[in-house]
């Protein structure tokens, strides 16, 4: 069995499972954010209503709002606060950070566990070797909250094998963007993806994070990196981190293997209207950008601020461009402070925002007027997601975001990082 099958078999009390089986499994963690928790709690109260048997398994993170801009939004957050207090579940309130970053940094996901959530990027927790799947509100309210369980169909596995070494100025995020183009949006609907190969295995934990987060755009159910020494070392830094839960596959041959070499890849940009519209940076350079942002579900990592500082240290951004800096968690901000990145990026003209999901869905920030454009480390670029349907969102690496903020237009970062520099 592979890692997904092993986890599902263990959690459903079966000796083995195979693709196509439908099983009901124990769920270790349910995570919701401020856009999903209210509706899920409402469904639970209206249709179930009894006390939660496992309230500690349920976690809510307010990540789209760091400070509600309207009375309606403030009301929704308050009702959700009231629900979490009444039901005894865990709440990370405004200012805590991005839902997934907060969950991981607080040790609330462990390898080998089953994690479910409303947010479509929930599969990102496969980075630690958990089975992480996005479900809908009715699964959460109807089976996870009252029974601690959820139903799953066992997915087929596709192995994504990445090999090679990146050129200077090219980062793992460029590889991730490019991979959506190479595989295609919705190309592996329902599959489980294993990210492997010497390129993936050579990445540290937070760079591996950029791969399972892609699952939703590829159509996959879940994705993971098999736990190894990098995983083990990372888990040991987590509060309550448990390496005894590590699960690996049996190494059975996988029928469907897709192989890619990253060695000659230039920086990549996902242009509107979808995340699969990925081009080599040459096709996007010189597009004026009024906004640049480091943040979002896959962004706002310490690594993103480190990379941006390599470009922006001692320089100042273009007067026509605003640079939003949105840490993925309070821990990221603390580390950025300690490393001097907060001051450096501030001096370069960037604006620090509270830990959150930043401009995702424009809940709290990031609306654009018709004709405006943003380049960011976000995960989505659908027109209308950030204000006007005539505004544009470009997705790129932290290096490209920084170089573009400097020039006021989308810029190739390779001119700013020396040989052997940022990777």
């Amino acid at each position: 069995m592979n890692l997904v099958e092993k986890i599902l078999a263990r959690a459903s009390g079966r000796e083995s499972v195979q693709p196509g089986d439908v099983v009901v499994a124990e769920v270790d963690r349910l995570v919701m954010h401020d856009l999903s928790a209210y509706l899920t709690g409402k469904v639970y109260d209206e249709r179930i209503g009894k006390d939660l048997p496992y309230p500690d398994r349920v976690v809510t993170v307010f990540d789209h709002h760091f400070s509600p801009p309207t009375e309606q939004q403030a009301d929704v957050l308050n009702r959700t606060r009231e629900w979490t207090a009444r039901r005894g579940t865990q709440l990370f309130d405004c200012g805590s950070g991005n839902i997934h970053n907060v969950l991981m940094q607080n040790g609330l996901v462990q390898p080998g566990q089953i994690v479910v959530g409303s947010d479509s990027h929930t599969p990102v927790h496969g980075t630690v070797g958990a089975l992480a799947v996005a479900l809908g509100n009715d699964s959460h309210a109807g089976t996870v909250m009252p029974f601690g369980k959820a139903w799953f169909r066992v997915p087929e596995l596709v192995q994504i094998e990445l090999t090679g070494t990146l050129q200077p100025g090219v980062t793992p995020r460029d590889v991730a963007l490019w991979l959506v183009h190479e595989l295609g949006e919705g190309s592996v609907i329902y599959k489980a993806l294993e990210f492997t190969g010497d390129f993936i295995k050579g990445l540290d934990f937070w760079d591996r994070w950029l791969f399972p987060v892609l699952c939703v755009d590829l159509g996959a159910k879940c994705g993971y990196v098999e736990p190894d020494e990098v995983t083990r070392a990372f888990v040991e830094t987590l509060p309550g981190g448990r390496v005894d839960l590590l699960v690996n596959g049996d190494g059975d041959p996988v029928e469907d293997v897709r192989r890619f070499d990253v060695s000659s890849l230039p920086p990549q940009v996902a242009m509107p209207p979808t995340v699969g519209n990925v081009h080599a940076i040459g096709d996007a350079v010189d597009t004026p950008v009024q906004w640049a942002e480091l943040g979002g579900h896959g962004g706002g990592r310490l690594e993103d601020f480190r990379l941006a500082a390599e470009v922006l240290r001692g320089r100042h951004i273009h007067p026509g461009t605003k640079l939003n800096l949105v840490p993925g968690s309070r821990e990221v901000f603390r580390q950025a402070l300690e490393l001097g990145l907060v001051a450096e990026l501030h001096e370069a003209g960037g604006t620090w925002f509270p830990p959150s999901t930043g401009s995702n869905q424009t809940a709290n920030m990031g609306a654009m007027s018709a004709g405006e454009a943003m380049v960011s480390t976000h995960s989505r670029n659908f027109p209308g997601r950030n204000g006007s349907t005539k505004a544009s969102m470009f997705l790129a690496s932290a290096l490209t975001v920084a170089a573009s903020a400097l020039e006021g237009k989308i810029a190739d970062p390779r001119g700013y990082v020396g040989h052997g520099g940022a990777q």
Partner: protein
Amino acid sequence: MSVNPEFQTRYEGRAWTFPANIPTDALVKSRYVFDPMEEIVKHVLEDYNPRFPLEVRPGDIVVAGHHFGQSSGRAIATKALKATGIGCVVSSAFSRTFYRNCFEIGLPSLEVPEVTEFVEDGDHLVIDLVDGLFRNETRNIERSVPPAPPFLLRMLAAGGLIALTQSDPDWAQRTD
């Protein structure tokens, strides 16, 4: 499989077609998710066809291209589509969270490969979920597809996932 006798497996209605890769944002924009359903249904798929929310009739059938309901897994997207009164939804391939939500909230759905190639707006369609039948009567085209797994059909027959767990104490054991 025991099917609630009130559960309808056959649907017949007028087609509304939609292109590939429509995200759930287009079914319910995030700015409407906290609004009452009466308000939400006025905007379903309006960016793709402004006539749809105004002119959709009970029993109509939505026919969508590849990866329908991609992106956010919000169940309210399926609830809003159901609230328009449509009989069922057909796609060449659903996004997995959307497909899951359809069964969980009781919106009948069927996957029919390449379906948008042989359906135009207004065509008269007949669908049977249990037999895996898709027929376009206007164009005299028929396709046979595998029906959904029994667990999902049982869910649909019960009226959704919560109804299933409340009506069948053994729901967690009967998954085959």
